[in-house]
């Protein structure tokens, strides 16, 4: 009996052993078979996948922490073909809720061309998607209750972030925009695209939960804090828009800068576009330089350029504020007769009244007295003909012909003195004049105040672009310009605040000749004169209400400054000086 059991046990042991051996043999055979590589590939295929992690694009704030550019959640609506039960139901649902064409979607779902995930619509906002999500939820609940598969099974919504601009068109010219592929165009978005976008990381993501710790941490893009003050920007844009209506100008630019630090507080231009609808770009702009004319549009500045000519002459010691000049109404420079803006003669003048009356003849005389070498050396020091280095994409350098250039003629020395025959950008003009408002030191204009990365905020320090004139010259010229405004009772004056500035009326060159019927008008001014807190440049293209800057640009300057002093908490001079003396 016992032997019989022993035999049975042995037989069972042999059978189990043989099975085990077969299993082991089969394992070894599979591992070493010709199909082993295929199996390994399949295993690797399902073991994980390569994914590219795009970090959240860095946000952009104004100087007071108001969000100018953020990110909003959008969805990719698609169908997981392997889980799809009812193509017709899905096609009906998406056509009813997302406006897709049923006759296009339905055939695509029936013939997905080997795709496992078929994208039906991309960049769907949460609000657009809500009805479809609700429908899917209700249908799923009903199907679950009826113990049948949901007809909308397989319909998936994959969330992602896309750029969004809460202020829409505000400061659009300097912010720029980001396209669907995440690339920044124009302004800050283009200039700092690499910082904002962060570094996309492509990694192998294992499905094995034991390797969950291997999932990468992708830090977001750098957040930027701009020097722009949202409220000042809004006020400037509002004033500019109204000025275009009042003056009939085609376009305009206003830049407001802190002359001591170079921080741009506002940069308003026209036209502006809603950055959330960047695809309408071509409806607003024909050329790229039109996006932000403040840095990309070059033009003849006209009489505001006289500030630089006079600054050079004062700095050389060639003239002083009371140096007399007898204006005969014309001067010959390079065998060309130069006349005043009114073709009149103004008789006995001095350098202050030359600026006050904006006499071309006087300034042409000043430049010829300086000589071409000195005059152009000063213009070079003021940065004319070079980019300012502002941290915005698309800045152009303008053009200043030099005596050694082929297209320079001796008359250019005279005409350049009052802003003809030279091309500048508004930001270039502003940067040059900052030397006069800032004790002779010219600052580099900048938009970026600080950047935030890895939990730390890095402040950007002001940069001095040069010292083209002495502090004494700057003070003298400031007083001259303030006096000239007061003497002529300029429309640029602001009650309670002493400001200095200069108008500019420039005819527009067309095919080598100046159009007698159109002008560009401008005004550059700063204040308070004894301690400048703002430097404002106003430029209007082709006003129709009046061709003169003192009737168009000067009042606009005054209007902006009246808003500015309130927004920046700058008290009237008598209060400020009273406080300082306490």
């Amino acid at each position, binding site marked *: 009996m016992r032997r019989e059991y022993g035999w049975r046990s042995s037989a069972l042991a042999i059978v189990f052993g043989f099975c085990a051996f077969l299993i082991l043999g089969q394992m070894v055979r599979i591992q070493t078979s010709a199909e082993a590589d295929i199996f390994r590939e399949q295993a690797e295929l399902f073991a994980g996948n390569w994914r590219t992690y795009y970090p959240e694009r860095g946000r952009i704030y104004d100087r007071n922490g108001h969000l100018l550019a*953020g990110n909003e959640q959008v969805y990719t609506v698609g169908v997981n073909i392997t889980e799809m039960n009812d193509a017709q139901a899905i096609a009906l649902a998406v056509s009813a809720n997302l406006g897709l064409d049923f006759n296009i979607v339905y055939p695509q779902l029936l013939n997905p061309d080997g795709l496992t995930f078929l994208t039906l619509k991309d960049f769907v906002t949460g609000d657009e998607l809500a009805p479809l999500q609700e429908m899917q939820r209700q249908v799923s609940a009903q199907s679950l209750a009826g113990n049948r598969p949901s007809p909308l099974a397989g319909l998936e919504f994959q*969330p992602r972030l896309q750029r969004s601009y809460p202020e829409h068109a505000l400061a659009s010219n300097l912010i720029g925009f980001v396209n669907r592929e995440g690339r920044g165009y124009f302004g800050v978005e283009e200039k700092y695209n690499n910082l904002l976008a962060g570094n996309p990381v492509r990694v192998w993501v294992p499905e094995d939960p034991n390797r969950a710790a291997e999932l990468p941490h992708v830090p977001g893009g750098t957040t930027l804090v701009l020097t722009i003050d949202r409220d000042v920007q809004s006020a400037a844009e509002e004033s500019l828009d109204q000025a275009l209506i009042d003056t009939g100008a085609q376009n305009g630019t206003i830049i407001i800068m802190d002359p001591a630090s170079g921080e741009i507080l506002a940069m308003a231009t026209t036209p502006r576009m809603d950055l959330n609808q960047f695809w309408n770009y071509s409806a607003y702009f024909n050329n790229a330089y039109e996006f932000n004319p403040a840095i990309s549009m070059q033009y003849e500045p006209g009489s505001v350029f006289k500030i630089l000519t006079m600054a050079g002459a004062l700095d050389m010691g060639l003239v002083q504020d009371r140096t007399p000049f007898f204006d005969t109404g014309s001067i010959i420079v390079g065998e060309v007769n130069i006349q005043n803006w009114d073709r009149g003669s103004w008789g006995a003048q001095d350098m202050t009244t030359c600026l006050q009356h904006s006499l071309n003849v006087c300034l042409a005389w000043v430049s010829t007295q300086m000589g071409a070498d000195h005059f152009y050396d000063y213009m070079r020091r003021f940065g004319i003909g070079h980019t300012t280095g502002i941290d915005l994409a698309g800045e152009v350098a303008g053009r200043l012909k030099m005596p050694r250039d082929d297209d320079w003629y001796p008359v250019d020395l005279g005409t350049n003195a009052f802003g003809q025959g030279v091309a500048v950008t508004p930001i270039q003009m502003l940067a040059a004049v900052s030397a006069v408002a800032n004790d002779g030191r010219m600052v580099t204009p900048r938009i970026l105040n600080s950047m935030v990365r890895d939990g730390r905020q890095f402040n950007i320090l002001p940069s001095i672009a040069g010292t083209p004139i002495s502090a004494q010259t700057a003070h003298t010229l400031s007083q001259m310009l303030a006096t000239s405004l007061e003497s002529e009772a300029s429309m640029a004056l602001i009650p309670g605040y002493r400001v200095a500035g200069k108008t500019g009326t420039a005819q527009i060159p067309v095919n080598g000749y100046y159009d007698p019927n159109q002008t560009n008008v401008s005004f550059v001014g700063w204040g308070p004169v004894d301690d400048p807190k703002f430097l404002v440049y106003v430029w209007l293209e082709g006003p129709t209400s009046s061709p003169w800057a003192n009737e168009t640009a000067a009042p606009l300057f005054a209007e902006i400054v009246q808003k500015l002093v309130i927004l920046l908490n700058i008290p009237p001079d008598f209060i400020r000086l009273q406080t300082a003396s306490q």
Partner: protein
Amino acid sequence: MINANVTNIPRFAHAYQQAPWRVQRQWVGAFLLAVLALAMVAALYLDVTARAAITGREIQDLQLQIASIQRTNADLQTRLATSLSTSNMASRAFTLGFRPAEAGEIHYLIVPGFYRPSAVMLVSSAPQSVTQTLPPEYSESLFDWFADLLGQPATGLAGVTP
């Protein structure tokens, strides 16, 4: 005498030899013990692996949740900024009867010591908190724990200063 001893050896051997069934049971017992030990190790391994897998899956879910919350957070911040945008705030202010102040309507008060910050600080200047890490109980091995224990000074004297 010697012959008597020699003839007794098989008898002694037979007397001290274990019964065949007893030997067989010992082998079976040893085998079952080995199987039991293997089963315990396998069960333990399976348990630990299952726990690790569950935890790993939870980590993956949490990471997905974090990503989702970050997206929602970004979305809500943008929506909030849209609600507080200049145009919205201005229209709301007008609706409530406010209007922009004129220059002559403003009274300036001098506040000694007031300093207007030049720009917003999005990040606190205070030192960042130390990054939270897993306690050693979750990462150190038994050997590490024992080595640390040996390396530590006596608890009673550690904090005593003369």
